[in-house]
């Protein structure tokens, strides 16, 4: 069951909602690299409520890592990065599942380790691992998000081999050994890792929630010296669909009915007694055509308590309305969590309500 209070700030976002949170809670994400980029990625994925994280890193925490790898502590020096990162993630979100893998990804194990994930995050620090992840993702048909940093700049690539875009689409040939520089050799500014890792996570949340089209098929480049963000398009024929397929239903979908113009009749016809309509908002709304009891809930109060106190019992049909449909949906699931068995929410709030009752 979704923890509404915890995730309310993102659930209430337009085009996120309960379903976006459900997708996150069911998602399995593999993060390769628990270093500079892995730090913000693991931090924000865990606090956003991703269901499972697999953390893959074979390195140990060193003192020079602490400048940018904020998930590790001074007391973690010498410890496996994957295990240290796992402890950090669990401390941020005890509700989620975490698996720390203290091992090096290689040609023999990459497909096996990265399988059974919805998304792979490439937060590695070398070209070989980037090609390895890309090729394994291609075999598994799993989208992946790759990020890289160097000195004062960073890149983000949202890739989906199944849609014709992977790391080799950008860099078909590996970089010659003579031209390879690591962060420790070339230097990197700590906040660059934070910015680029946060951009990667923002794209990851778009992919996982299916609510927004990710920045797909391009090189997204950030330069902190000029503070410029630029896009280099690589793939010119973008797919219409999002990267991950929509689920037809979620396990607990039966507890809440999301009303729209096409399905509202079924809900009201199947009510054995007159439903009660609760409006959570402060707009002036014409309820004269509704034909059953209406209560306006003061948004300053706790709506769940107010609605529960006005409901005859937990089986009585309730219809929740707010201005845009996000808060009512969230409270509908909150009531379901309290044991109310017949709760509905108007999908787009007042727009859907007026379509149904005013015909507008």
């Amino acid at each position, binding site marked *: 069951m979704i923890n509404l209070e915890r995730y309310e700030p993102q659930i209430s976002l337009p085009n996120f909602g309960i379903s976006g949170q459900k997708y996150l809670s069911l998602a399995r994400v593999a993060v390769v690299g628990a270093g500079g980029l892995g730090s913000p990625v693991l931090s924000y994925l865990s606090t956003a409520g991703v269901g499972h994280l697999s953390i893959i890193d074979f390195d140990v925490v060193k003192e020079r890592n602490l400048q940018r790898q904020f998930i590790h502590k001074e007391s973690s020096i010498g410890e496996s990065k994957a295990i240290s990162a796992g402890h950090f993630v669990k401390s941020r979100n005890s509700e989620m599942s975490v698996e720390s893998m203290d091992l090096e990804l290689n040609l023999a194990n990459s497909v096996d380790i990265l399988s059974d994930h919805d998304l792979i995050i490439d937060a590695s620090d070398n*070209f070989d691992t980037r090609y390895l992840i890309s090729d394994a993702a291609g075999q598994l048909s799993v989208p992946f998000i790759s990020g*890289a940093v*160097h000195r004062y700049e960073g890149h983000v690539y949202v890739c989906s081999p199944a849609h014709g875009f992977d790391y080799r689409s950008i860099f078909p040939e590996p970089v010659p050994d003579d031209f390879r520089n690591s962060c420790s050799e070339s230097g990197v500014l700590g906040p660059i890792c934070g910015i680029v890792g946060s951009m990667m996570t923002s794209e990851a949340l778009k992919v996982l929630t299916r609510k927004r089209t990710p920045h797909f098929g391009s090189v997204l480049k950030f330069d902190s010296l000029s503070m410029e963000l630029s896009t280099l398009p690589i793939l010119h024929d973008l797919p219409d669909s999002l990267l991950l397929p929509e689920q037809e239903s979620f396990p607990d979908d039966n507890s809440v009915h999301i009303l729209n113009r096409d399905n509202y009749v079924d809900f009201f016809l199947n009510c054995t007694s007159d439903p009660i309509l609760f409006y959570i908002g402060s707009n002036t709304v014409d309820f004269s055509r509704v034909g059953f009891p209406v209560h306006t809930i003061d948004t300053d109060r706790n709506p769940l308590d107010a609605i529960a106190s006005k409901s005859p019992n937990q089986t009585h049909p309730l219809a929740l309305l707010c201005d845009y449909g996000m808060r009512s949906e969230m409270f509908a699931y909150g009531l379901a969590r309290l044991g109310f068995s017949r709760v509905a929410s108007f999908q787009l709030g007042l727009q859907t309500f007026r379509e149904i009752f005013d015909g507008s």
Partner: protein
Amino acid sequence: MQLHLPSQISRSGDAEVFRYTITTDLTVLELLEVASKTHPNLLKLTQLQKPGYLHIFGEKSRMNISLNYDDSCTPYTDVRLVLAIAGG
């Protein structure tokens, strides 16, 4: 970054491969995109081969760029370089 290529194109090797030598301090493999809107001939060809970009292999102070495009020999004046980076 913007890179201004020389307006004169000199051929070498294969008839459809042109080589430039550019002085730069960049040291790693680069990704290069030519503005396809102003150079439709390149766009046409790159759609058949690679999507609008070219590769540079370089030494510390010199880079050799191979451009593959058709015979129109349009000079390219709007080119973007993006460093291939791998730090994490």
